[in-house]
């Protein structure tokens, strides 16, 4: 380590040749280890509560692990069981169903709003930005409770509005697609304003001359949106898709609180049980830590696969430019 540490002054000397090297070499040991001390808290905590648990999940998944009983090595039996488990595939489908119908409309809405907010002469711009961030500061738990009421089958506002149009009341939570709609609307509501701000930040970084030129050429607002706004936001769009994917795989609180009568399954037929909720049910509801960890490993694999797909999409778009 000392050998590499003394290499730094050489670098510095190369940059500032006017300074005598002696001064930098005298840098005391304390100064050389200081950077490591500054970053140590993160790495220590991350090692204990982040990295180790992640690796340990793979280990626990190989056991029939009862937190209060004994732990028996079972090899890959948990995974065989997982692949044959209807409940797992059901949770898998629910997670992706909710992810799709929440992310796509949400990001489209955010794009449109960012385009509107990007008017240089917009009045009360700060008011609009702040108001859009109100859902972000509202907790998922509180959101889930009020949305459960808004979508309630008897006294919900949505059913009251449907009734005005002569449509009979819908029991949203009783069906799979219905409960996806309820949960997706919570996810959308909480994040659309936040994503709007991210897109707006990207748009404001663009030179104004681009829009000026487009206006001079007679491009309408819609044409500007299609030909200027969307293409220039591509990197941020990819970023928000990745973040939404990671967030979407973790949906837990919404399905847990939206259908309280059924406990951990989110409906008698597990209509809206997500992978995270299934993991929790197996681990902390059934006390099957091994099987629950196998779900965790499966989730990890899904995250890696989705990230790789995103990575390839990113590199392809970069090449395309």
């Amino acid at each position, binding site marked *: 380590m000392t050998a590499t540490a003394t290499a730094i002054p050489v670098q510095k000397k190369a940059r500032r040749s006017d300074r005598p090297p002696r001064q930098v070499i005298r840098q005391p040991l304390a100064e050389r280890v200081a*950077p490591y001390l500054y970053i140590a808290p993160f790495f220590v905590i991350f090692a204990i509560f982040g990295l180790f648990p992640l690796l340990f999940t793979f280990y626990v998944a190989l056991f029939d692990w009862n937190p209060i009983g004994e732990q028996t090595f079972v090899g890959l039996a948990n995974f065989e069981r997982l692949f044959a488990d209807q409940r797992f595939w059901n949770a898998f489908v629910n997670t992706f169903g909710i992810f799709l119908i929440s992310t796509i409309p949400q990001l489209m809405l955010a794009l449109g709003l960012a385009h509107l907010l990007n008017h240089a002469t917009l009045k009360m711009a700060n008011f609009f930005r702040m108001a859009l961030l109100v859902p972000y500061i509202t907790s998922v738990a509180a959101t889930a*409770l009020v949305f459960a009421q808004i979508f309630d089958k008897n006294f919900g506002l949505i059913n009251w509005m449907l009734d005005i149009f002569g449509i009979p009341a819908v029991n949203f939570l009783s069906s799979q697609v219905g409960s996806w709609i309820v949960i997706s609307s919570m996810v959308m509501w909480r994040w659309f304003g936040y994503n709007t701000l991210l897109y707006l930040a990207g748009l404001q970084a663009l030179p104004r001359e681009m829009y000026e030129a487009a206006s001079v050429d007679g491009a309408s607002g819609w044409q500007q949106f299609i030909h200027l706004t969307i293409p220039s936001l591509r990197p941020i769009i990819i970023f928000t898709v990745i973040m939404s994917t990671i967030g979407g795989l973790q949906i837990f*609180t919404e399905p847990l*609180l939206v259908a309280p009568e059924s406990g951990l399954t989110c409906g008698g037929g597990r209509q809206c049980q997500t992978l995270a909720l299934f993991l929790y049910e197996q681990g902390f509801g059934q006390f099957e830590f091994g099987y629950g960890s196998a779900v965790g490993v499966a989730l990890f694999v899904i995250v890696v696969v989705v990230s790789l797909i995103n990575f390839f999409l990113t590199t392809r778009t970069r090449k395309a430019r």
Partner: protein
Amino acid sequence: MSDVIDQAVPQSPQEALVRPQLNRRRHGGRVGKVGWPVYALLIGAVFISVFPLYYMFVIASVGASAVTSIPPRLYPGFNFADIAAKVFETVPFFQSLLNSVIVSLTVAVITAILCALAGFAFAKLQFPGRNALFLIVLLTMTVPAQLSVIPQYLIISWLDWVDTLQAIIVPGLASAFGIFWMRQHMSTTLNDELMQAARIDGANSWQIFWRIGFPVVRPAAFVLGLITFTSVWNDFMWPFIVLKSPELFTVQIVLKQLQANRTIDLALTMGGSFMATLPLLIVFFFVGRRMVAGIMDGAFKG
């Protein structure tokens, strides 16, 4: 050493660095007049953003009859104080508010300082392995910690921390996003010449951090603290797993408890939900602009 630093610190160098960026941003945006349809659409979006929270308050201030009447009641009543009092009676709400404040504030303050320190090291100090270590920080941002809740719970129980507040505080202190964020701000706003001057005066990196580095990025650290506070305050899953005794519950977990009464008294649930959000709303009222600017700034740099 303080002489040089004190003379050099006054705003000018940092401002000179920040200004052009701000000016450029003010120039961004589409040109032309804003028509009323734009305002109509934006007001619609604001309505959607605010309505669920407003509706919470309506139910909590009218009582459960707000939803059973046809058409449903859409404006607030005068019973909020009664319902709030009932919430405090039914569950240890005050205690849970206190727990949430303790947990969120501790995590926010410590995270902001630790991340500023680590960001300073990554942005401004040379040391072997710096790039590799920073890559690890970046990679951890893409792996959701939630996948490994079971081993996390095992570790907490080996440490004998189940059902304690430090079970929430300590794991929350490692923020990869925070380090990334502070490093960006450190590298754009902290002046190298100033650091050199302080070094020649004999200041070590610790002194440089506290006297020059941290003061310069304090606004960014404040926003990071706010974002951290919000996310810890609103977290549900992890406290739900590790907390067992009602006197340690955070506000979010108490909402789940209140929900048990949902069919009996909806107003109670909505009153609790609204009060759980109220502290953040108040904070947001005062510093919302900075939070908006911070989030947009993060997107801009990231």
